[in-house]
């Protein structure tokens, strides 16, 4: 069923009786060409691009719970391509380009809103660093501008420019950044993949891998064994648990990141704003809630909840740049489990086991990467060659000394 304004109008006039389920609920077949473990944004995007771009449609997506019930439904919905390093930036720029065409491609309203992202500058050194970053962004074809305070005041007069400790001196501005309706991304990709023949199998937990002579030939699941020529793991947040079933240790720790949303307010924040002297980022959803977050809690955990010290730290960050936020009441807060990698960058790679592929380690930046992650993972699975913008996301990069460490923090996951 193709969605259109006319269809909405017609259904509105005829009692909304003509809508059909958006994807099927098939039983698993005994064998597939490709099994994707994990029905989150990245897994569904991978299935969609496998079927659409690479002609591999005999695909199953296995999801332990329900699709979109993990981090794709728990993030702060920001999209941007404002990275520095050549291993990262072209990848995120590809992602932003895919976001820009996504709704037409999927025929699905994902409420993509390029309202811009503003990274505030609070010191001379930071201005130098952001000028360098802005140039790095332009090298990949992305847009970037350095703003002075007059430029920021035009957009965000409510910021605390004269803050005694962290005065605002400028900003890195990416107009093409913005926000997306996160759940719609999962649903849109699921609908697109299903329409092309992909089986989306929910409530199907993978309990083991079938590995014979160093080759992965299928998986054991809570709904029986399923054979496959290729098995692609895509379970960021639970990567350690799933890959342990294949006997692999990963350069990843699992940490919790909290997110917050205030009561609904009239439009007050024009785009996405990030604090440069602490860790705080905020945007306003179309419903009016201020959506914001900050640091991870900092210790290994698989519990989808965090502690109050980080809540305090996030709120202090908010108060430091926009004191008006103190008048808003908090509506909800929640946590999601992140794959924190050893250098803060992700993995899209083959493993040492033939036919077993791995995608994970997204730290807390996985949402914006969803389209490119799916596209590049599909490329790797279909052709056994990495996509040209994802050649550095290798599992062996630590052994080779080829880390992609945007923050220069070293092998300490809770600092990335």
């Amino acid at each position, binding site marked *: 069923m193709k969605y259109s304004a006319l269809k909405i109008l017609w259904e509105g006039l005829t009692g909304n009786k003509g809508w059909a389920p958006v994807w099927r609920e098939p039983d698993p077949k005994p064998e597939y060409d490709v099994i994707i473990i994990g029905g989150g944004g990245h897994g569904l995007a991978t299935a969609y691009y496998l079927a659409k771009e690479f002609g591999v449609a005999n695909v199953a997506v296995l999801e332990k719970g329900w699709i979109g019930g993990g981090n794709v439904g728990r993030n702060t919905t920001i999209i941007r391509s404002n990275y520095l390093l050549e291993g990262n930036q072209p990848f995120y720029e590809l992602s932003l380009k895919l976001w820009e065409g996504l709704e037409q491609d999927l025929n699905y309203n994902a409420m993509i809103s390029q309202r811009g992202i503003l990274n505030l500058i609070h010191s001379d050194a930071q201005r130098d660093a952001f000028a360098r970053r802005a140039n790095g962004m332009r090298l990949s074809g992305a847009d970037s501008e350095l703003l002075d305070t007059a430029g920021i005041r035009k957009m965000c007069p409510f910021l605390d420019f004269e803050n005694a400790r962290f005065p605002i001196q400028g900003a890195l501005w990416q107009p093409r950044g913005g926000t997306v309706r996160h759940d719609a991304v999962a649903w849109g990709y699921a609908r697109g993949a299903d329409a092309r023949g992909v089986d989306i199998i929910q409530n199907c937990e993978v309990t083991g891998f079938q590995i014979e002579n160093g080759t992965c030939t299928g998986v054991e699941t809570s709904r029986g064994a399923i054979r496959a020529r290729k098995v692609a793991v895509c379970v960021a947040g*639970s990567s*350690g*648990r799933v890959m*342990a079933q294949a006997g692999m*240790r*990963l*350069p*990843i*720790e*699992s940490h919790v990141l909290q997110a917050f949303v205030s009561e609904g307010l009239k439009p007050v924040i024009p785009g996405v704003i990030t604090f440069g002297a602490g860790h705080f980022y905020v945007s306003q959803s179309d419903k009016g809630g201020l959506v914001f977050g900050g640091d991870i809690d*900092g*210790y*290994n*955990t*698989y*519990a989808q909840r965090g*502690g109050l*010290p980080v809540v305090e730290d996030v709120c202090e960050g908010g108060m430091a740049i926009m004191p008006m936020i103190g008048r808003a009441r908090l509506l909800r807060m929640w946590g999601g489990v992140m794959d924190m990698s*050893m250098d803060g960058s992700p993995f899209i790679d083959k493993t040492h086991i033939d036919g077993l592929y791995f995608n994970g380690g997204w730290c807390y930046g996985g949402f914006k990467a969803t389209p490119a992650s799916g596209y590049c993972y599909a490329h790797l699975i279909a052709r056994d060659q990495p996509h040209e913008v994802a050649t550095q996301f290798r599992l062996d990069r*630590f*052994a080779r000394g080829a880390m992609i460490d945007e923050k220069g923090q070293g*092998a*300490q*996951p*809770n600092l990335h």
Partner: protein
Amino acid sequence: MIIHHPLLGPRDAAEFVYKGDVTLIDRPDWQAEDAAEAFHDYLYLRDNPAGEHRELWFHEQGDRSWLVVTRNTLTHEITKVELARDVARERGRSR
């Protein structure tokens, strides 16, 4: 979270800095044949279990001791706290 420090009693986890898995105590022998591989595993690979996890915490805003905390990563329940010095000595380290 409250960490029951063996010397100082119950302390707020916010006083501590988290380092990571307790295997970081077992620094490989740099003169061994397989030292490069051993250091790679030591520095970069983690078991990352869902459940009981032994981990290093540094009491930075306290007595600056290193602790080995046994904590459940699914519930955050802490079942054991030891001085890292004692754990290292048990493992045959001189200090």
